[in-house]
């Protein structure tokens, strides 16, 4: 099996498995007052400190959630509701046009249910938002902006956003800015305090931790209206029993991922470049999507002109190579990617795309495996083309 879908999820690191399994059978709700509860609480708080350190944040800024989607929902709805409560004019949300659905959909929900005005910041051909674009959008009326959200790096095409520059613009106008850094942590340097961001989303399973755990890192002076109501475990902002085993596993993973980031990033970068070069050598009519240089180290995203991405995926799967069409799925039904459409690609091109993503367990053999079968697979998929209808 050649697993090249690490951007979807990457295998848990041995350190994370050890830390998590050590906790699984132990009693204790971290919010309980007795000895078992205190023991579990200690695990949670030590983990919080490890995670905060890995992200350049203070422990008090770390809020545990069930993962990236919940962190994004909390940041987006929480910011919108608390800002509009203080100033009813602040109803305009600015996000990039290439956000993950976990950002895009809660924003569109606010548009539909809470009269939010949504502005999708246009991107260049690589999927990048420019400082000028953001500035121009704010300057339409700086007094009505609720918040800004731009992802650190794109999950589909890998393009890295100029976060620090965008943050500077936001600060000029004193507008809170959030970033979904789910794909970036462990691959790029993500330092919360240095970034100047007000809120940051991180997910456990993308850094070698377990699925079902994530954090929202949020500055202490930013007010959030809660989305989940209940026991108020996380600073009254997030309710739900703290998942000590997952939190321990997450902390162990992020510690390794961040401390080994530099080496892994350079290793993945060379695998990426190798695959890109070889694919472009052996397959005609292939386009690399996203920024050729300034991209996630392990991300390769191609359009193979004249075929459907899902046909390529299926044929590769049959040969033991696992990748992704990099597009949002509902019941497995491929939709043309809004990211590629925002980058100016047409619908047919958007449907002919495939993402390979390298991770910790990837080796040069993976590249060889792909190159051995991909030319024949693409040729066959091109012959199949789009399902043609007899008429």
């Amino acid at each position, binding site marked *: 099996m050649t697993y090249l879908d690490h951007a979807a999820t990457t295998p848990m690191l041995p350190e994370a498995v050890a830390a998590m399994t050590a906790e699984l059978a132990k009693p204790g709700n971290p919010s309980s007052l007795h000895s078992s509860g205190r023991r579990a609480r200690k695990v949670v708080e030590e983990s919080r400190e490890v995670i905060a350190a890995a992200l350049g944040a203070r422990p008090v800024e770390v809020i545990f959630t069930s993962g990236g989607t919940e962190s994004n929902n909390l940041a987006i709805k929480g910011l919108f509701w608390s800002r509009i409560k203080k100033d009813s004019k602040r109803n305009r949300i600015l996000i990039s046009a290439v956000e993950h659905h976990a950002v895009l959909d809660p924003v569109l929900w606010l548009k539909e249910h809470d009269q939010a005005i949504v502005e999708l910041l246009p991107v260049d051909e690589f999927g990048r938002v420019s400082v000028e674009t953001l500035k121009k959008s704010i300057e339409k009326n700086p007094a009505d902006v609720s918040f800004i959200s731009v992802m650190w790096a794109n999950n589909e095409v890998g393009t890295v956003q100029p976060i620090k520059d965008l943050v500077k613009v936001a600060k000029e106008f004193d507008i809170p800015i959030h970033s979904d850094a789910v794909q970036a942590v462990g691959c790029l340097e993500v330092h919360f305090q240095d970034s100047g961001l007000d809120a940051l989303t991180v997910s456990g399973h993308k850094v070698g931790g377990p699925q079902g755990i994530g954090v929202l890192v949020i500055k202490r002076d930013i007010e959030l209206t809660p989305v989940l109501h209940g026991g108020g475990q996380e600073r009254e902002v997030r309710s739900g029993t703290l998942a000590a085993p997952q939190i321990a596993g997450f902390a162990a993973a992020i510690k390794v991922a961040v401390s080994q980031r530099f080496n892994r990033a350079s290793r993945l970068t060379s695998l990426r470049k190798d695959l890109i070069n070889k694919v472009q050598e052996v397959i005609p009519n292939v386009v690399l999507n996203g920024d050729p240089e300034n991209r996630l180290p392990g991300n390769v995203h191609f359009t193979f002109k004249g075929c459907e991405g*899902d*046909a390529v995926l*299926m*044929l590769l*799967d*049959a040969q033991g190579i696992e990748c992704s069409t990099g597009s949002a799925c*509902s*019941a*497995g*039904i*491929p939709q043309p990617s809004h990211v590629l459409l925002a980058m100016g690609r047409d619908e047919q091109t958007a449907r002919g795309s495939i993402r390979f993503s390298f991770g910790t367990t990837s080796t040069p053999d993976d590249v060889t495996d792909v190159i051995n079968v991909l030319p024949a697979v693409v040729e*066959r*998929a091109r*012959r*199949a*083309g789009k*399902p*043609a*209808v*007899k*008429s």
Partner: protein
Amino acid sequence: MTKKVVAAMSGGVDSSVAAARLVDQGYDVVGIHLALAKVKGHAGGKGCCTLDDARDARRVADRLGIPFYVWDVSDEFQKEVIENFVSEYAQGRTPNPCVRCNEKIKFAAVLERSLALGFDAVATGHYARIIETPQGPTLHSAKDPNKDQSYVLSVLTQEQLSHTILPLGDSLKPEIRAEADKRGLITASKPDSHDICFIPDGDTAGFLHRKLGEEKGQIIDAETNEVLGEHDGVFEFTIGQRRGLNLTKPRPDRAARYVVETDVKNKTVMVGLPTLLKVDVVTASNVIWCGPIPESPFDCLAQVRAHGERLKAKAFHKDGNLTVEFIDSLQGLAPGQTIALYENDRVIGSGTVVTTARN
């Protein structure tokens, strides 16, 4: 080499068992669910293309240990089946969307794509049989007369039949349910689908109204030309229909009246006694032969609707057009319907009804 087969899995019990049998027979099987309708989020429970059905199909594929994918053919389905359905009704014809789907989607688009992707055949859970003969494969009725679907497959050419596998043709429906149960398939007790899949509530008239709007017109007595009532759209009526006419005046003899003719141009619906429904001669186009082309004329049995009876007839064909003279009496046939011709249980071919006439 092991044959590679695409099992079209709707998420119903029949296609589930069909896929399971192929796996048992040693084929290299990949399960494909066709996303036909454009659904976003949670569509209603019935029909054959909801998220629930995709999930059920996926669970069956899991159980069988075969790969499973969803193919989005909703654009093609929208254009070739739904829009065709609406426009046929708008022109006063009565189409069969299942026949159309088989002809244009399942055994055309999907089969072609499967072959191009390196598969040898497509299998479905239809109840019909394919028999290999020295003259090539031929299509036959299923063993189960209650479930026989050879009529809706009567648009398949020999070329298509040679790449089609129908694993259920020799089984009775109750056997299939029992087998699904024994195999532990999640779809074992799912109800059969009867409605048109894109009209899950069964309200075809309501569906057509939403698409075509209101087109008020008169209901007229076919013999006296007397105006008997009003209607909201000719497309609500099909020849042979008796219910839902809302006639204001009963006949003096209280005899039931039926739709005997519709006229889209003048927006009129003609009603009359069942004797007016008698059809002696039918012409058809879009003629497809499912086996060797027969010499004209030939004696046959003709079926004009799914699960309809087969009537003795004599068929003539020339230059791709078909004329069928009925020997047994046929009542109520509308242009647009599919007429399938049989020799005993073998499907000779089919055509789409263009005109009907009484001697």
